[in-house]
């Protein structure tokens, strides 16, 4: 069946009215999060169980909506039941019959499935009451809860594509451009370059056609904000892209998505097809006379392909390696044509700016950074998940109010922002208001928004080694400072962690870092030394302990620790002896055991298995 295309702005309004009229708000609607986190917890089974149960119990009309990521991945699978808005966390298939019979049918609340505030023990019914959500400003993620990403009608019902209609019928491309410039929207991919200025450069550049590109090649360890937006609300990105294309005067766009994000690829493909079907994409969009085609490109998933010039070379079908950017990609990019590349989150902000205006947008955030930013809060924090906060919020608010504090009530040590190329920020700076400029001042960066929280049991040298090793694997190897420098950096850090560190290593690391920052070809190399530089800056004593005293202060680096048995505490229970995978522990029942240091591989199982704290780490 070919659908009647939307031919004007009023057609869109009519369609919206029609969709809304079809939906009775009184009919119960069960939304189940099927973001990647919740899927891993088995939300797909919950959906199937719900469908069966609703049928078995003959409830009549009940909507079951499978949505994108809600954000609170720590407590998945998440189920929200409307019209009451009851939020259940950690739902299992066994809970489904109760949910259907008690909540959906009777409207009763099942206490055991509610979120319990860990400090007060209070049960919280609504999502908005859960501290994780309460302290956020959810502009982009808000709709993830409400729409089925595979159904364009959900998006249109919430006012979707009205920004596009406004741009096409009420504004000239120049006005759209001015609005985005006035909003001071800065690139969310990490660099923070003003999107409006980039658009303008592309618009004014010579050469046709011009291209617009969505960068969804997110590859930081522990970061998944782009993925969740692309999976949960692809239309918001597509709408932003079309508006951008209109402002720039581009007839063609690409959405560059990682192959490793199959759900994002699937949902985006469906969304593009639906947008075409409704006449929101393709020739003569909404009857305005503006043509724009968009295609999805599945990337081979190299970290460096997220860099703009590397992404464009990859799009051209070549090896994804960066090129020198002395002439900007906005002037000479994809196939040598002016190309405007923005991050998923940047594009998703565009419809908001057009609908609500630049003045509204600039009212959120700090002097230099406007709007909100999505962070993926992971690591040793109680509530992990995606958080959207206004720029200028402090790290303490994110970690303690939203994140609920450190796991196991341990002491906070540092937070790594900006992924592997960012830096670790220590506790003394936790009250800094974060935006693009502040984070750069601290030696870290905004990056695409990864936020890895580390507790007191983390060795910062080990952390630096981990990130450098990640980058060694991901460096394309084109230029000398990045390829050779990173490998050498990894060698030095490994030596330090294994007790082979020498006097002068720190100076050498600093020298190397400076040259890498100065001379590398692309952003990967110039930011790669950040984890080393920030840990050197904020935790110099840890490096010194490793190098001079050959000691790891937090007992993480295996080569520098040994497990011993405290003869005074050992009861001779044989627990550690049986648990040791290497057979390194000898002893008889009720006699003090001994760990053979030569056989011990320092796995720590004996430490965990001893009930009397008799195993000690030295």
């Amino acid at each position, binding site marked *: 069946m070919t659908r009647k295309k939307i031919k004007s702005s009023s057609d869109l309004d009519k369609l919206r009215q029609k969709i809304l009229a079809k939906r009775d708000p009184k009919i119960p609607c069960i939304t189940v999060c099927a973001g990647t986190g919740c899927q891993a917890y088995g939300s797909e089974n919950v959906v199937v169980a719900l469908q069966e149960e609703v049928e078995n119990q003959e409830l009549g009309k009940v909507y079951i909506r499978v949505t994108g990521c809600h954000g609170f991945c720590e407590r998945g699978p998440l189920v929200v039941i409307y019209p009451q808005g009851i939020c259940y966390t950690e739902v299992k298939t066994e809970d489904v019959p109760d949910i259907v019979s008690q909540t959906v049918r009777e409207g009763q609340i099942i206490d055991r499935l509610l979120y319990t505030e860990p400090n007060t023990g209070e049960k919280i019914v609504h999502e908005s009451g859960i501290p994780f959500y309460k302290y956020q400003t959810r502009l982009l993620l808000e709709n993830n809860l409400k729409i089925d990403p595979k159904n364009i009608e959900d998006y249109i019902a919430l006012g979707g594509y009205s920004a596009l209609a406004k741009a096409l019928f009420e504004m000239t491309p120049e006005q759209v451009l001015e609005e985005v410039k006035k909003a001071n929207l800065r690139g969310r991919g990490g660099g923070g370059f003003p999107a409006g200025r980039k658009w303008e450069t592309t618009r004014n550049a010579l050469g046709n056609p011009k291209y617009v590109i969505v960068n969804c090649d997110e590859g930081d360890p522990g970061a998944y904000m782009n993925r969740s937006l692309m999976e949960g609300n692809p239309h918001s990105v597509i709408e932003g892209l079309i508006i951008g294309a209109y402002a720039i005067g581009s007839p063609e766009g690409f959405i560059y998505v990682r192959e490793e994000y199959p759900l994002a690829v699937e949902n985006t493909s469906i969304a593009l097809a639906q947008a075409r079907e409704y006449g929101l994409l393709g020739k003569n969009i909404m009857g305005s006379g503006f043509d724009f085609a968009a295609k999805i490109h599945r990337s081979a998933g190299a970290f460096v392909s997220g860099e703009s010039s590397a992404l464009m070379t990859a799009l051209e079908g070549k090896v994804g390696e960066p090129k020198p950017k*002395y002439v900007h990609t906005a002037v000479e990019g994809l196939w040598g044509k002016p190309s405007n590349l923005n991050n998923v989150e940047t594009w998703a902000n565009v419809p908001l700016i057009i609908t609500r205006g630049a003045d509204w947008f600039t009212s959120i955030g700090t002097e230099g950074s406007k709007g909100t930013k999505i962070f993926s809060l992971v690591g040793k924090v109680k509530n992990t998940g995606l958080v959207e906060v206004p720029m200028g919020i402090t790290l303490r608010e994110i970690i303690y109010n939203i994140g609920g504090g450190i796991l196991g009530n341990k002491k906070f040590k540092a937070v790594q922002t900006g992924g592997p190329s960012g830096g670790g920020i220590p506790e003394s700076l936790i009250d800094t208001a974060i935006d693009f400029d502040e984070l750069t001042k601290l030696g870290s960066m905004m990056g695409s928004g990864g936020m890895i929280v580390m507790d007191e049991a983390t060795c910062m040298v080990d952390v630096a080694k981990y990130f450098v090793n990640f980058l*060694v694997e991901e*460096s*394309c*190897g084109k230029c*000398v400072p990045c*390829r050779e420098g990173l490998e050498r950096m990894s060698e030095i850090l490994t030596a330090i962690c294994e007790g082979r560190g020498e006097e002068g290593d720190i100076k050498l690391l600093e020298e190397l870092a400076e040259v890498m920052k100065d001379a*590398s070809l692309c952003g990967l190399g110039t930011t790669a030394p950040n984890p080393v530089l920030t840990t050197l800056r904020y935790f110099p004593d840890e490096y010194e302990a490793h190098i001079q005293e050959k000691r790891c202060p937090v007992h993480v680096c295996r080569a520098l620790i040994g497990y011993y048995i405290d003869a005074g505490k050992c009861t001779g229970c044989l627990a550690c002896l049986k648990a040791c995978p290497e057979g390194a522990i000898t002893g008889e029942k009720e006699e003090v055991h001994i760990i053979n240091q030569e056989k011990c591989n320092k796995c720590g199982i004996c430490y965990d298995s001893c009930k009397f704290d008799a195993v000690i780490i030295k």
Partner: protein
Amino acid sequence: MKRIKINGISVQVEDHWTLLEACKFYGIDIPTLCYYAGLSPGGLCRLCVVEIGKGERTNLVTSCNYPVEERLVVRTHSERVMRTRKMLVELLLARCPSSKTLQDFAAKMGVQGVRFRVKHETCILCGLCVRMCAEQMRARAIGFASRGKDRRVTPPFDIKSEECRTCGACLFICPVCQLRCQGPQSPNVVCGACMNIEPVCLEKHEDVRCYLDTCGLCFKGR
């Protein structure tokens, strides 16, 4: 014509020149490894970095592919530039210690030793052979494979390429495989094998290190 300032001297340059071409024209020596006049600039070895801009806002850029801009202020041998070049040579030398070209650079720049583990690789991945094969020989018989530290030059799928006419252009242009240094290879030290060829002049001229480039001083010394 554009006006730029190189090392404090105001000069006129052709519009289409790169900074390296401008510097070469005015006789300023900038070390290069992956640059060859007949090939597209690679910008990989980064040895040709120069400092542009003035005041506190200066940047390092590779001169081989940086187009000249009106009123650009360039410093080709500033402290920051030299520090960077020295580290780059040290990194390359640690990878490929037996290369004459790298030994020469090290000697000229005063790199006295290598602080990294020496690897004894044979290729510095400058990509000259790849570009030569593609751009001048029109064969595209070799290219880069793998990523990062595993990156290497090889024919596609590591099998002898049918496109290869064994013309030898890649051998001709390779900056490291010609004249391999045969000196004693003690780890982490610039080998200084050239000292066996020419009399050591270090005693007479403190700061002058003469390696394989026979410097006029050596002859004087004799």
